[in-house]
């Protein structure tokens, strides 16, 4: 199952390498990783989607290992938290003037935009959840996708809610989660 983590790190050179290298070292597969600046210039924020075959046991392991990195400030698991999740895709579709209206119609349905038009192609920009983008891709594929790029998922919890923090010693740590691991250990 895919888990989504929000990881705040110090904005210093090499930190992305430390985080990605940790996933390799501990044998985890990253599905997507988006990183960027935040409201605080000293802090970068990552949204990391990771495959955790052993569920919460893996999530715990991952959080604990992330905290071993000196530059990691905060880790939250937002997988099951109400949150806003977005991914942005640019899709270049091979289409001439005769089928352009069809692509335009699809874009309207998905609230996507045509952001570039060339004689035999258009670029569609779509923002939304993973599912929505996948849905659009499915429909564009028969028309002909020449190129595609995606930013990777970014997430933010709704309202005043935070994600789950399993590590003792961090703000608002939840020991209940650790106790629940008993039944799940392999």
């Amino acid at each position, binding site marked *: 199952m895919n888990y989504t983590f929000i990881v705040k*790190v*110090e904005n210093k*050179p*090499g930190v992305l*390498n*430390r985080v990605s*290298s940790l996933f390799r*070292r501990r044998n985890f597969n990253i599905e997507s990783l988006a990183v960027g600046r935040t409201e605080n210039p*000293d802090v970068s924020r990552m949204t990391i989607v990771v495959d955790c075959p052993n569920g919460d*046991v893996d999530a*715990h*392991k991952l959080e*604990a*290992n992330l*905290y*071993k*990195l*000196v*530059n*990691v*400030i*905060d880790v939250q698991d937002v997988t099951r938290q109400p949150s806003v999740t977005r991914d942005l895709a640019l899709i270049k579709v091979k289409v001439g003037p005769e089928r352009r209206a069809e692509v335009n119609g699809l874009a309207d349905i998905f609230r996507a935009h045509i952001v570039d038009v060339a004689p035999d192609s258009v670029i569609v920009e779509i923002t939304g959840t993973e599912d929505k983008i996948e849905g659009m891709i499915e429909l564009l594929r028969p028309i002909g996708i020449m190129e595609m790029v995606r930013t990777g998922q970014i997430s933010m919890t709704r309202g005043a809610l935070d994600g789950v923090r399993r*590590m*003792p*010693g961090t703000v608002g740590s939840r*020991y209940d989660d*650790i106790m629940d*691991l*008993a039944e799940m*250990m392999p």
Partner: protein
Amino acid sequence: MKLKGAEIVWECLVREGVEVVFGYPGGANMPIYDAMLNYPIHHVLVRHEQGGAHMADGYARASGKVGVSMATSGPGATNLVTGIATAMMDSVPVVFITGQVAAHLIGGDAFQEIDVTGITLPITKHNYLVTRADEIAETIREAFYVAKSGRPGPVLIDICKNAQVESCEFIYPAEVELSGYKPVMHSPRPLLDEAVKLIEKAKRPVILCGHGVIMSKAEEELMQFAVKTQTPVANTLLGLGAFPASHELNLGMMGMHGEVHTNLAIQNADLILAFGMRFDDRVTGTLKTYAPKAKKIHIEIDPAEVHKNVFADVPLVGDLKTVLRDMIPLLDEYDHDEWKQEISKWRSEADARSIMNWPEDGKLYVAHLIGDIWKASGGGAIVTTDVGQHQMWTAQYYQLEAPNRWITSGGAGTMGFGLPSAIGAWFAAKDQEIWAVAGDGGFQMTAAELTTAVQEGANVKVAIMNNNFLGMVRQWQEFFFEKRYSAVNMRTPDFVKLAEAHGVPARRVTSRDEVDDAIEWARKTPGPVVLEFKVEQEDAVYPMVPAGAALHEMLQRPVKQ
């Protein structure tokens, strides 16, 4: 005060209380070596950077302080890698300072430019690339703090040559402020209460004492805890010495080559109290059948070790000494007489098979020799080892009464560790007797450091257990590969001549009746001494839990006819 970067390096080391640095100069750290001449820190010129890394490691383990090792860029730094990994696996605080090419050359494949922070990223607790002089003071301050706090470990600082020669205002930061790094000291009270409840219910408890006891300096608290609750104490390889071997509650070493009664105690326990240890595979055997009846309380500073291999019913993340201090007043007294009697019954059955109780047959067995060294040194020496059979025999038979005297590469299993780590330990404890026990294989990996020992007058006694085999691999080939010996038969140089060529007095011992005299001679001869023991070639370490077997499925030494 305006200073050059290279001077700032030494200003900081002096303020961190560094007495000795083990290193090797080269192109990219020459400014640091030039500035060194003006500072009161002793520098040990090693013969290979790996030796320097192990010396700093041995110094750190014997002193409980942070060790420091230096190397130049490129191959100098890559030669440190084995030593860094060794310190990482055993959580030893060492600060490595390497030179790097000038910042404007980075990325251009300049002479002796190697991406050292990249290479050492997974084998350091943290590392830094310093490109400007004004970053040096803060970085060194941070590095020492990170190395020794929380779960200790090696930290590497790669300093560009331009940063060493440029000048800047020297300000030594009063405090370290790291937003993301705050080791937890105390465990929360509700969890302590849960742990106390499990201890109350327990009839067959065992304490597993790991390296964390020594790193946290919690030996006294461990003793109080064990005595108050009358709980027997089993040791991991690196936990040896944290609890006195002669104490009636001491069980000795657990795991693959642990004592039979210790492993049986763990397998039959109803409560495991894991103190500063990480349930390594060499300690647990197969996890499926590990301590099946026991609840587990795990006190550990590194949250990533909790639930990693063995699920903890009560995970207590925190500093061991602090957590034990919080917990001891909450505990009642117990006697656990029945349980202790059961364990002593297992112990007396196992003792009958011990090689120490064999009748004399004139041959040299390593186990006996370790016993002889133990007797001669009154059990109080610092003992370092390489890795393999001799390491296990030393762990089994050099009975330790105090911590910081047992220096061995546990997690990494690094051959060639014994001699250099002994030299490093000598700088921490110059009045103490120091023995480096090595095999013929491992000794040859770092034998060049004999010259370093001579140059420094390091008073270390080297005992080479020469069986002309890579003994542990041979043993595995005998047990698990139908005795098909592959690349284990080893021709060795004349170790006596080799030692003498380095200026080290040496003797070869081939028979039982020469042993005591040789050991006494080594002890009385000042400075480094080498003893080569021609030992029984195909002896095996018992007991042994084969890899992947359950902890109670031990192969035991055949009873002698």
